[in-house]
């Protein structure tokens, strides 16, 4: 049985007139009859009663018409819904993002995307970079917003934000007026850092280790908001990228002297999979935003 046979049959059954049906299908009447005959052979019963002057459906023809219409309807619906997915009139964008992104940049990206594509459902799960990479690799997320390069194989990454890490202190901190600070000096002051499972923390630790220094960590916390809040209270300092601090009030950023402590944030996706249409568009959108120097998201 072929779909063509079914479509021909449905048309003929709806019109109950082979010549008219053939015309509307742009086939010859004998072609139509042949196809319907083949279908009847396969079904095993006549679908049309041709004994009368007018063509009528047999009982089997009625049963088959009802089901065949449903079958065709479902295929048409599938095409429509897939067309919607293509033009982003429907669909889902599943993002996995570092909490870092969630603070400031991600909400603005999402708002922009949502304004342009209001029918795309956006699902965001946040977590550590390990979690994000797992999500992307397993297909639970279309796109990850994390550190780049990704650590797992098969993940592609593109840097969006190349950030220098600053010593972050409260405006009231005794070091608040410093133009820059040596890492050795940083190692002497009490620090509040993100938890060890975070890649950002591992980068910081490795930089200290490279200079045979150890950070004086008095507070370790996995909540970024809380970390910023604690730092703004005045006694402890943090090591964070500029865009993470963003517009948090009463905080001063002091550059680390010497070789800058850089950390790259970007998008990661599965190297072997397809990027879904919304993920492609979203990625383009954020890439464009960062193509400009001094992008607005970091102001």
């Amino acid at each position, binding site marked *: 049985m072929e779909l063509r046979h079914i479509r021909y049959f449905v048309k003929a059954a709806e019109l109950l007139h082979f010549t008219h049906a053939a015309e509307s299908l742009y086939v010859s009447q004998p072609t139509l009859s042949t196809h319907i005959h083949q279908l009847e052979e396969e079904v095993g019963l006549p679908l049309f009663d041709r004994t009368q002057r007018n063509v009528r459906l047999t009982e*089997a023809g009625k*049963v088959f018409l009802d089901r065949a219409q449903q079958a065709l309807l479902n*295929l048409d619906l*599938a095409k429509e819904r*897939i067309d919607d997915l293509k033009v982003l009139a429907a669909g889902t964008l599943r993002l996995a993002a570092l909490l870092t992104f969630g603070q400031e940049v991600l909400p603005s990206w999402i708002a922009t995307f949502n304004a342009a594509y209001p029918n795309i459902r956006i699902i965001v799960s946040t977590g550590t970079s390990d979690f994000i990479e797992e999500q992307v690799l397993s*297909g639970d997320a279309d796109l990850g917003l994390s550190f780049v390069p990704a650590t797992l194989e098969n993940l592609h990454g593109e840097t969006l934000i190349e950030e220098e890490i600053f010593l972050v202190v409260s405006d009231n901190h005794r070091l608040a007026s410093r133009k820059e600070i040596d890492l050795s000096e940083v190692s002497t002051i009490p620090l509040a850092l993100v938890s060890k499972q975070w890649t950002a923390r591992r980068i910081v630790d490795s930089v200290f280790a490279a200079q045979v220094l150890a950070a004086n960590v008095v507070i370790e916390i996995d909540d970024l908001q809380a970390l910023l809040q604690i730092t703004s209270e005045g006694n402890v300092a943090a090591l964070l990228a500029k865009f993470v601090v963003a517009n948090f009030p009463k905080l001063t950023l002091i550059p680390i002297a010497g070789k800058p402590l850089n950390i790259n944030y970007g998008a990661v996706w599965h190297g072997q999979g*397809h990027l879904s249409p919304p993920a492609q568009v979203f990625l383009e959108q954020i890439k464009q935003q960062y193509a400009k120097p001094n992008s607005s998201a970091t102001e």
Partner: protein
Amino acid sequence: MELRHIRYFIRAAEVLHFTHAAESLYISQPTLSTHVQQLEEELGLPLFDRIGRKVRLTEAGHVFLDHARRSIRELDIAMEEIADMKGLKSGTLRLAALLLFGQEILPLWLAKFNSSYPEIQIVLKTGPSERLEEELLSGRVDLALSFVPASNPELDYEKMFTEEVFFVVSERHPLAERAEITFSELSTTPLAIVSNKTAARKVIDGIFADRQLKPKIMVEIDDLQALLKIAEAGNLGTLLGRLAVRKHETLRLIPIADASIMIDFGIVWHKHVHLSPPARAFFEHVKRECCTEPILSRIPAES
């Protein structure tokens, strides 16, 4: 788009492993991949993400799977339903019916049944209810259209409709202008009546007996047409329902004032005999017709 390719896709989407899916479809893995790829090109979006040996559905893949399954299911059900009908293709419907049915409704039902199932041969026997029951019990017929309940406990039945029995006379009969008639009057009026082999006759006899009355039966006959002819001739009245009298314009139906004689008609079959597919189809057909047939809507319902 080909149905075959849709089936391939569904299997691949269920197994999520192209090699295994191809094996179970008895095709090569490259063939499966090619067909799925064609489908993807036609739809304009990838349906699968192929990650190494692992395969997963994209959002478009999920959408398509959902609809494709429903679509294929519809066609499979259609084939099953038609396969059921195929049992009927060259079968025989062996039917027995009261003469009463043979007059009007049965020819109509049979004509419609025949246009739905033109290949089924129909063998019809008519007769009084007693003979119909014998035919059923011996297995010579599958179904009988008769009075219900059936008298034999081996028989099962389903009621279709109820008819009231009237005193039926020619318009030339002395009682033709009467609005109604009492039972005692009836017992003194000469009657032509169906033979005592029918259940209707038994009901009528029962009612007379209950009242310790004896009907004045001048003619007893087992041919309905003949009975109607006798009544039309003018001297004798008879006892019949509307259905039997239909189309005999010169006959008057006079209600019996002090007893309403109600007779139930239905389909009767043997309890322990599996109904043949044609019989089952006819049974369903009659049940449908029975609810839609305008003839029957004119028959007073049980009240």
